[in-house]
């Protein structure tokens, strides 16, 4: 088999080249630092903050509304099943307990396997 000539750079030379590359990168990024950036006035930032806070508030109200509506529907369902159809209520309680136990068990097993 023909021997291949491989030029191996020693650690020091490689290190020097790395430093050179890093300093070239830094030089380029320094030029970017001198790039003019237009900064809007304080009023623009104030408007932006107010608009963003309004969005956050709206989102919070929407999320809370959805939460309460879903909670009321579930509670109504449970109450109706408890007073009108006790068999369905007992079935739901057992099914939910089994589901939670099964779900937690499989998740725990997965975690143990990964670990």
């Amino acid at each position, binding site marked *: 088999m023909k021997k291949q000539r491989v030029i191996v750079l020693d650690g020091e030379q490689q290190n020097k080249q790395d430093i050179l590359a890093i300093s*070239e990168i830094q030089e*380029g*990024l320094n030029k970017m630092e001198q790039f003019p950036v237009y900064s809007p006035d*304080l009023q623009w930032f104030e408007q*932006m*903050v107010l608009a*963003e806070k309004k969005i956050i508030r709206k989102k919070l109200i929407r999320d809370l509304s959805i939460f309460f509506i879903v909670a009321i529907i579930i509670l109504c369902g449970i109450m109706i099943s408890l007073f009108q159809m006790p068999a369905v209520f007992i079935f739901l309680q057992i099914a939910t307990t089994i589901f939670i136990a099964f779900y937690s068990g499989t998740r725990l097993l997965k975690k143990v396997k990964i670990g």
Partner: protein
Amino acid sequence: MDALIKNAKKGDHLAFAMLFKDHYPFLVKYLMKITMNPDTAEELAQETMAKCIQKIHLYNGQSKFSTWLVSIATNTYIDQCRKKKREKNWQGQEEIYRKLKWHFESRNEDWNDALEALGRLPEDVRIPIVLKHYYGYSYEEIGEWMKISPGTVKSRVHNGIKSVRKELNLSEETESHRFGRRTTK
């Protein structure tokens, strides 16, 4: 903690505005360095500020406010890249720095070869290089922000520098060919 930050945490919108006005150029310039695109940088800066308003209660004052902004901006950019890749709206690495290069040339400033090499790198390699070798953050900090281990950050930085080095050597070789010089014996 700074009085402005304290007031912003209490919900004072003027304090927030002043804080953002002070940090806006720093934020846009950081984003420009990692995105290599001035328009994307400005767009992401606004998104970062919006996230900052939402998460200000999580800022504990252990690090500088600018460092906290950098961490949010980094995550916002990574999320945007993932989203674009999912939507198959990805322009590819070749295109992203063209506008910046044009800006440099229009201002009669030299475009650095290393910047071109940096622009060709994937964003998950470019970000740690900029954070480590320009801003001087530790591998641990970068890893925490990018949700990867410090070892992975270190290897990405190392490989990224290696690629830049190779590309710079390549251009030197091309230049020496152009001028008819021999670099090897």
